[in-house]
Every structure is written in structure tokens, then in C-alpha cells.
């Protein structure tokens, strides 16, 4: 299984600022996913990031608010821009697993609080 790390593990930010979350994988992967897990809620897919192409955003998420970079096969960043308290959430990155279709491995998450 892939080992995934995320930085920072948590942060407290002021509204109007931006935070970039890093996701590092210990092996090369084609697909990386960014999720949001709001308090008491399930996971919501923000976007899918493939190396060498533009990220694919889900309904309700836009590139201006959540720009994503995918410079190589082991790394991705998600930026939460112009933050508001509603952006307070856990942000998770994941990668496709080697065990077959749709199996995913997740990073430990970044807990973001916006004040």
C-alpha cells in the first residue's frame, strides 16, 4: 500500500487568507484525489488531479477557490483561497490503490480552522 503524508497536519488561519496543503506519496501514482470532510459530514470529492493535465473539479468546486498543482507523479498541492469560516474542514488527499478499481489510500488529513 502507498504511504501518504500531508503538510500541515493542522492550521488555524484568518479569513481572507490562503493555505496550501501538500500531499506526498512514497510511490508514483497516476491519479490523486482531494476530499473535504466537514464536521459531522461525509467525504466530498473536490477534484481529481492527474499528472500532466488540468485537475477535474466536482460540481460546486472551482479552480479559483481550490487551485491544484500536480507537478510530478508523487506530489500534489491543494490551495484553499480567500478562506472563510465555512472552509473549516479536514482536507484529505488520496491515491488509487494497487488492489484494483476504486480502492483508495488516504493521507492523514489536514485539519483547517478559519477564524
Amino acid at each position: 500500500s502507498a504511504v501518504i503524508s500531508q503538510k500541515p497536519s493542522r492550521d488555524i488561519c484568518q479569513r481572507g487568507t490562503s493555505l496550501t496543503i501538500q500531499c506526498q506519496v512514497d510511490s508514483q501514482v497516476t491519479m490523486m484525489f482531494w476530499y473535504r470532510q466537514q464536521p459531522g459530514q461525509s467525504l466530498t470529492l473536490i477534484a481529481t488531479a492527474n499528472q500532466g493535465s488540468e485537475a477535474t473539479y466536482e460540481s460546486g468546486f472551482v479552480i479559483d477557490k481550490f487551485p491544484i498543482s500536480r507537478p510530478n507523479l508523487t506530489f500534489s498541492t491543494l490551495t484553499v483561497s480567500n478562506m472563510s469560516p465555512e472552509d473549516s474542514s479536514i482536507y484529505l488527499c488520496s491515491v488509487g490503490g494497487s488492489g484494483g478499481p476504486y480502492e483508495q489510500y488516504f493521507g492523514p488529513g489536514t485539519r483547517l480552522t478559519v477564524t
Partner: protein
Amino acid sequence: AQSVAQPEDQVNVAEGNPLTVKCTYSVSGNPYLFWYVQYPNRGLQFLLKYITGDNLVKGSYGFEAEFNKSQTSFHLKKPSALVSDSALYFCAVRDSKSAGNNRKLIWGLGTSLAVNP
């Protein structure tokens, strides 16, 4: 619309007793079903999956799940619960309408399992 339902927000069981965490789904086509677990202050971990084959699938940490097509259910089970099983459990299903290799999953809201000593 495709969806996953976990009807119980919380399940409480005594250590040593069997546990069941329920999941029902609604998708078009053949379902690909998954269970993930989120331990406190840790990331989500894959537990098991059903793609095809035997309706009873076995996964990590002694967990198993039974696929029931007629009831559109995929309940997670364990014969004897441990205190260390206390965690948040998520059921997920493949979004059969996602294009190509997007591999999008539809997630349930999660069930908090508390195993009491």
C-alpha cells in the same frame, strides 16, 4: 440518483459481542462496494471491497461484509468486537456514472462504532 445510506449514526456494542454496521446503496449497474475505517486522529483506511464473486467478503482486522443484491445492502460485520475497533466507519460505492478512469466514489455519512469494555 446514486446514493449510499448508513442508517445508524452510532452503534454501541460490548466487547466480545458480534457487531454489525449497516449500509444500503442505490446505483445503476453492478455495484462496487467498499468499507473504510477512520480511527481517531488517523487517516481513512481501506477495510474491504466487493466487486464480484462470493457475496461474503473478508477484509482487514477480522471484518467481513455481506453483499445482498435483493436488499441492496452491504453490511459490515465482525464476530467478536474489540475495544480497539472503536472508530468511524464509512461505506462507499463506485459512481457508475463517472467517466473513464475517474474512479469517483460516493460515500455514506459514516457510523461511529463504540465498543465498550
